[in-house]
């Protein structure tokens, strides 16, 4: 099997960690604001799961990079252009329905990805994936149930969910589009070819959206530029100013 270039492995690990970091931060903003208490706690739990996974991915990324940076350094001291998350996860919370639609579209990919990574040729990646996949199995059940509940709910909730799907669907394609980094880690048996996950994803997402009485937009257009760092949307910058301001204003501050 091909040896992987460490710089490309670092890129790949940043993609995994930045996805969970950015989504985890957005989801954490619901704390104290969700429509009902039970959802509030569930969203906080999900956010904490994602931040926990971030510590593992970025911790390993920092180790692979070998420049003495820590997971915290990568999370709090990089600027927009160094982030490698997909565009989907940096889209804003919107209303509760939009948040849950974004969550479901990501969770369904995340589950397939982690399931494949659990069999990675890289032991530490396999271990992180095996631990995370149990959390994500629950995330996708929960977000899928909510998508069904709201999609097949009242006319108001249905129209909000359809609107959310129309808004977010063009960001789904990026998760399955392979580039040089994906090809390098796939060739080394470290990660799957992203395109290979699409069929299972479409089956799961299609079934849930059908049950939710929502129609998948027919336009196949897909935004890209997030995971390559080429072109993030403006939302990521706003998120980082919120997330990073304390470390920026008080460097080295800790509990």
């Amino acid at each position, binding site marked *: 099997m091909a040896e992987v270039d460490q710089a490309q492995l670092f890129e790949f690990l940043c993609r995994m960690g930045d996805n969970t970091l950015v989504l985890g931060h957005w989801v954490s903003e619901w704390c*104290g*604001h969700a429509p009902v208490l*039970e959802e509030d706690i*569930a969203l906080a*739990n999900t956010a904490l799961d994602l931040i926990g996974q971030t510590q593992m991915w970025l911790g390993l990324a920092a180790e692979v990079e070998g420049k003495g940076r820590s997971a915290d350094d990568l999370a709090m001291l990089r600027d927009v252009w160094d982030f490698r998350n997909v565009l989907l996860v940096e889209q804003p919370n919107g*209303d509760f329905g939009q948040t849950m639609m974004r969550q479901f579209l990501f969770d369904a990919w995340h589950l397939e990805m982690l399931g494949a990574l659990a069999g990675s040729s890289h032991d530490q990646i396999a271990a992180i994936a095996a631990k995370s996949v149990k959390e994500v199995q629950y995330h996708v059940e929960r977000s899928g*149930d909510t998508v069904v509940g709201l999609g097949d709910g009242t006319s108001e909730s249905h129209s909000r969910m359809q609107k959310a799907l129309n808004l977010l669907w063009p960001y789904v394609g990026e998760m399955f589009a392979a580039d040089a980094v994906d090809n390098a880690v796939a060739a080394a048996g470290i990660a799957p070819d992203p395109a290979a996950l699409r069929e299972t994803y479409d089956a799961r997402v299609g079934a849930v959206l059908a049950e939710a009485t929502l129609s998948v937009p027919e336009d196949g257009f897909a935004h890209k530029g997030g995971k390559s760092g080429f072109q993030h949307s403006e939302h990521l910058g706003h998120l980082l100013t919120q997330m990073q301001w304390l470390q920026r204003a008080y460097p080295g501050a800790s509990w």
Partner: protein
Amino acid sequence: MSSPNSAYPDTPETQTKPKRHEWPLWEVFIRGQHGMSHRHVGSLHAADEEMAIKNARDVYTRRNEGVSIWVVEARHIAASSPSEKGPLYEPSESKVYRHPTFFDIPDEVGAM
């Protein structure tokens, strides 16, 4: 802590707010790591039983408290009436002989 529509800031507040429909109340029972039986831990709101179990998982087992969850809709629980506590419970107060404390239990029996 916030208005009902705070999750939807783009929804204009109207004069006549629709009635807020609450989900039914569920009582939650958790069996702990070492416990033999399920214990009542509290209650929560959910639309149906599957959601009640998921909510219970998030609200009551997030610190690794349990290995099994039961939920039952609160309206299905029949309860004794507090006003009848005299006739129901007081007669047993004076009947100490009902406690099995008048036997010597051999050490070999162990914990009971």
